[in-house]
């Protein structure tokens, strides 16, 4: 229990202590400097509000994001991973794409860019050095002797002379790179209950709302819906849809499977680099698979990812000619990413292992048909050791 007598504020009880530490458990990673940077950009120099809508606009502004981005990149783990527990930190996440946010949620380290840390230090209550000088007055308070405990400051109606008290939470951070501080620093809103329980409630609710927003962004078509239950509904539908898709795709792959002989997998696992994947085809003189032909239109009626397959078929028409010319084993690269329209560039290449020369993942390239020994057009970032020397007829049993 801490007494901050100089401020005239009283320390929270140990209950808040527990609450803060429990909050800490969930979001270890989001640095408190989010809140600080937001404060910095908040022109009125008020504390960061917990309310999401007020934060959304500054969050989406590009200088904010530019600043957030280096904050988010975990440079070193030396500085304390301060815990920003709820609203402020999560609304910081809202400006980011959801996957980044998820990364952040699981990121255990704290960015310790010294410039940002310095800036954050000015706002930090625990900053020993320059806190008193530069930080805004209501936030500055003399640091408690041991840096571990944080507190919630509760202002009653009388709030340092401010007409409008905003409730802000900014996690304490230790700028000297000491251990993490698991507490939040809360100022109560005017007219709201300053009870510790209600504050905890509010923090929990803010957390949940922030996560709901992330989910909303992730699930397509959810951003227009308002209301928790409907959004949950959409999320559930989406999860079920994805699970059904997995089942369906596995069924499709199961049908394909007899053609693919995975025996050569090990050799390919060793032979492939991390950037390129390969498919080997065996001798190209395969008798036509009438079953397969018949099956393809059947699958196309059912399938969702047919666009890709159609592309493959169109491309393969042209590729066949080349294939028949080359009786040797061929390797080609397959673009494994979801390049939407022209997705099957193929490269003809002899038995060499080609490193990926092309830049990364999301390139879409037209395939050009060249003779054997041509340079790879595409590389993708997957290891695809799907082996198969695709034998001829005997492996092409199709089952429906």
């Amino acid at each position, binding site marked *: 229990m801490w007494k901050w007598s100089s401020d005239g504020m009283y320390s929270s009880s140990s209950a808040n202590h527990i609450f803060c530490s429990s909050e800490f458990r969930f979001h270890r990673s989001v640095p408190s400097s989010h809140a600080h940077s937001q404060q910095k950009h908040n022109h009125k120099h008020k504390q960061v509000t917990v309310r999401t809508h007020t934060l959304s606009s500054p969050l989406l502004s590009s200088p904010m994001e530019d600043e957030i981005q280096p904050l988010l990149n975990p440079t070193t783990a030396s500085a304390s991973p301060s815990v920003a527990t709820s609203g402020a930190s999560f609304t910081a996440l809202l400006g980011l794409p*959801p996957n980044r946010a998820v990364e952040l949620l699981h990121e255990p380290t704290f960015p310790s860019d010294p410039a940002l840390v310095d800036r954050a230090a000015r706002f930090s209550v625990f900053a020993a050095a320059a806190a008193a000088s530069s930080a805004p007055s209501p936030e500055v308070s003399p640091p408690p002797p041991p840096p571990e405990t944080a507190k919630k400051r509760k202002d009653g109606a009388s709030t340092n002379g401010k007409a409008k008290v905003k409730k802000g939470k900014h996690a304490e951070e230790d700028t000297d790179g000491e251990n993490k501080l698991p507490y939040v620093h809360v100022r109560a809103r005017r007219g709201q209950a300053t009870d510790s329980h209600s504050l905890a409630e509010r923090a929990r609710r803010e957390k949940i709302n922030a*996560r709901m927003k992330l989910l909303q962004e992730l699930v397509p078509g959810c951003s227009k819906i308002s209301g928790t*239950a409907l959004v949950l509904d959409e999320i559930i539908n989406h999860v079920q849809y994805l699970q059904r898709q997995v089942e369906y795709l*596995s069924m499709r*792959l199961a049908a394909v499977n007899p053609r693919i002989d995975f025996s050569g*997998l090990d050799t390919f696992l060793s032979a492939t680099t991390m950037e390129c994947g390969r498919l080997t085809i065996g001798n190209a003189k395969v008798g036509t698979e009438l079953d397969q032909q018949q099956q393809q239109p059947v699958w196309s009626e059912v399938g969702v990812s047919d666009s890709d397959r159609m*592309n493959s078929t169109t491309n393969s028409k042209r590729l066949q000619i080349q294939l028949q010319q080359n009786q040797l084993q061929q390797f080609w690269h397959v673009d494994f990413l979801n390049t*939407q329209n022209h997705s099957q560039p193929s490269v003809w290449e002899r038995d060499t292992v080609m490193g990926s020369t092309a830049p990364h993942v999301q390139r879409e390239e037209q395939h050009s048909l060249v003779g054997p020994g041509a340079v790879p057009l595409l590389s993708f970032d997957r290891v695809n050791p799907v082996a198969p020397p695709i034998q001829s007829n005997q492996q092409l049993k199709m089952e429906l």
Partner: protein
Amino acid sequence: MHVTKEFKKKTFLKQLLLGLHVSNSISNPISIQQRKNSIKLSADLAMAFARGRTHWTHALITKLGQKEENKSTLKGILGRRYEILMARYSCPLLYQKVQRRKKSVTSYRFSYNAQKRRSSALKGSCVRVSPSVVARNLENRRTKVLKRLVPGGEFLNGSSLLSEALDYVISLKAQVDMMKSLWRATQVSSSSNVELVPSAPLQKKDASCTIANSEE
């Protein structure tokens, strides 16, 4: 998503193919159902393995490891960690609940609506259901359904459930993408061996393109 999950996709693919290899080499599954199950198993395990340490991955792996027929594939994919995981999470009682049959949302909603209708019909206008109560009920039901969907979600609550669901959705999307790509790859390899390619499916390209785009 591509950028962030790139690295994971590599591991996923490797694991998936490893699993497929293992499952193929072990037994010669005759029926397509068996093969489908083994593929799905490999895919799920690979996804869980590639994702790393989260609650749902552990739950998924443990749940899949409970069944006897999956153990060999599990061993193949996980390797050493299989033993560790099995030792650590060897409480089958917890996960028996998870293996209930999943109800669909629609049937749930239907039953809920029917219930409400019945209750209101019986009591007439005496039922004072305040909107907040209704909302809370709806939310509770949805949460229950979500708990069943997300592996290991039965034991989470509130925000942690939502975060696990978020993670799970991302991984599922990645898994679907990977399997689609694998499918495409097999298609390319197979269709290149075919003389004649049917042109009829090409007309469906536009329709399916939009579907694919929307889901991507």
